[in-house]
């Protein structure tokens, strides 16, 4: 009864304050971003600058054949303005450095658009320069890969790539091996490779793939931050001391705060998840993990708040913990960055668990195991917070 009274009181205070609406507003904003700005299956449109160091007839013949197949479309020539710039180009093999100095230039490029024959969508725009210098100048300014194609003594095509320097080793290696076979041989090799999918696991589209990140950070980060804000508001008003001289226990006061955060997070997460995911997720597991993880991170916020008098004094700890909690998102979006130590950050298994939940083939055992761990951890942190608050109710 006392807990219920405290919860109702906290909900009234939350509904009359800013933080509750900030969280709901952010949820609606993120939903709009997801629905409007994030395409389900985004197609990356590439741009290439090429120079063919060979007879123009050969180039025309190649593109004419491609145009005939329907995967290339010729468009009007493009005139691009290039500003003056100086830079060095280093040969990756010989380490030989060549210096270039360009003035303000205006280049005319033959322009072709590469078309995906299955979808009919534009995938790449190819600009063909009249000179290697023009290709290098524009590649540098536009931060795009450039290439020069020439003929060797046997009539085969030689490729010279100009990269920006920040490309991964994997991409550079791919460029090295890409043309070691003729296109026909490569196609035949690929046709002979057999790749089969074990089971019937479906992947998430780009929009759905964003949902776990938004849910984790709306729940864990916002829950962690907002519960601290509520505590510091109470500290500034001195109402914790007034509560401490009633027969009600401090843990009821703390739990009522946590319940308000759990309610808010359940609403804001639903605002994002239901419109994007529809009926696909296992919502029983979803809300179980959501509420447990929010309880855990809100408890962490309570514990941290017990060490400080005001939010300004707590800002260092608040900022550090929020950064730590955000780090696993890098691994989520860049699977190649997945060091072992990152897996011990609590938001790492949380992200993976929410991803499991919203996929068609949910690993229920994995989600339940993580839910149990978060519940146990959350309870321990909550008990510590309770002890700290009992000790720090000073006159």
């Amino acid at each position, binding site marked *: *009864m*006392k807990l219920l*009274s*405290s919860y109702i*009181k906290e909900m*009234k*205070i939350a509904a*009359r*304050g800013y933080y509750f609406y900030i969280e709901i507003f952010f949820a609606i904003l993120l939903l709009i971003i997801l629905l409007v700005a994030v395409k389900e299956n985004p197609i990356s449109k590439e741009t290439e600058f090429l120079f063919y160091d060979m007879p123009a007839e050969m180039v025309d013949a190649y593109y004419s054949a491609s145009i005939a197949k329907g995967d290339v479309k010729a468009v009007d020539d493009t005139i691009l303005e290039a500003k003056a710039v100086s830079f060095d180009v280093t040969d990756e093999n010989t380490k030989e450095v060549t210096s270039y100095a360009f003035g303000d230039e205006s280049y005319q490029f033959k322009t072709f658009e590469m078309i995906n024959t299955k979808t009919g969508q534009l995938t790449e725009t190819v600009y063909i320069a009249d000179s290697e210098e023009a290709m290098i100048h524009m590649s540098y300014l536009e931060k795009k890969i450039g290439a020069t194609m020439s003929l060797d003594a046997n009539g085969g095509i030689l490729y010279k790539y100009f990269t920006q320097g920040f490309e991964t080793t994997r991409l550079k290696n791919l460029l090295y091996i890409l043309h070691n076979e003729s296109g026909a041989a490569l196609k035949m090799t690929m046709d002979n490779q057999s790749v089969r999918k074990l089971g019937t696991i479906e992947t998430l589209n780009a929009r759905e793939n964003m949902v776990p990140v938004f849910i984790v950070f709306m729940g864990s980060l916002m829950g962690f931050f907002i519960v601290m804000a509520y505590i510091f508001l109470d500290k500034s*008003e*001195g*109402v914790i*001391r*007034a*509560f*401490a*001289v*009633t*027969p*009600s*226990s401090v843990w009821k006061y703390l739990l009522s705060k946590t319940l308000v955060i759990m309610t808010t997070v359940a609403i804001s997460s639903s605002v994002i998840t239901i419109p994007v995911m529809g009926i696909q997720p296992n919502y029983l597991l979803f809300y179980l993990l959501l509420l447990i993880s929010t309880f855990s991170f809100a408890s962490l916020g309570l514990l941290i708040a017990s060490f400080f008098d005001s939010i300004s004094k707590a800002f260092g700890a608040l900022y550090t913990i929020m950064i730590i909690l955000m780090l696993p998102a890098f691994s989520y979006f860049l699977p190649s960055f997945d060091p072992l130590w990152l897996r011990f950050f609590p938001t790492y298994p949380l992200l993976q668990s929410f991803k499991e939940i919203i996929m068609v083939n949910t690993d229920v055992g994995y989600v339940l195991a993580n839910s149990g761990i978060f519940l146990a951890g959350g309870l321990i942190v909550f008990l510590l917070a309770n002890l700290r608050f009992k*000790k720090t*109710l*000073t*006159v």
Partner: protein
Amino acid sequence: MISVKNLSHSYSNDEKLAVNNISFEVTKGETFGFLGPSGAGKSTTQGILTGLLKQQRGEVIVAGYNTMKVQNERFNKIGVSFEQSNVYSKLTAKENLEFYAKLFDVPTRDPEELIRLVGLEGKEKVRAGEFSKGMKHRLTFARSMINNPELWFLDEPTTGLDPTIAATIKDIIKEQAAQGTTTFLTTHNMYIADELCDRVAFIIDGVIKLIDTPRNLKLQYGQKLIDIEYINNGKVIKETLKTIDDHDRKRIGEIVNNYDIQTMHSKEATLEEIFIQVTGRGLV
């Protein structure tokens, strides 16, 4: 109702004591004044008695409960009015009292009745955040009565209030005392203590210097004085003379017999003057 024996407290957990080996008792129905300047140890003592500060040394029994043991139910018998008002600014006056009423396990008073009692009628549905400092203080005071406390801790109950409201608050305290409520009044205002308290304790630097009734203190330490204004050679002269001093008594006779008296008032020593006399320090 309160028994304190050899109570000491150090915030730094060393020999630098905020409260140094104090002992006193407050009997049921008594209004006990705990008087001293800022930093004397008043709030520390009240903090320990109300359970807001962890007791370190000594023995304290409050409302029948040993404060070394955590027993939340003791707060059913206790009311605390803080010096700094502490109410939920986003809740209305009535919501504030209704919420606290639900935290107790004993019959509670009607929030609207308490709001009227402290002169906030018509403000029941106004959020406390819109209240003036004095109004918040009155709401905090009203809240301390919500559970009909047997033991009432009041910390500077009239500070910041205008004289009319302060008089209302003092009347409420007298009324509660008449009904048998035990009151532990912490203040540096000697006039309030003199008016309300059955006994007072003077505390300074964490040490209780004396405990007695205001009347006994005045009899023991006070000196009856007479202020006389008379006209001498066309000028108004003012003198303050002691009635217990032979020389002064003769001088009073001379003035009365030889001069035109303008005003003459007898005067008792105030508690503040006695405090200064006993402790050698003022109350600021």
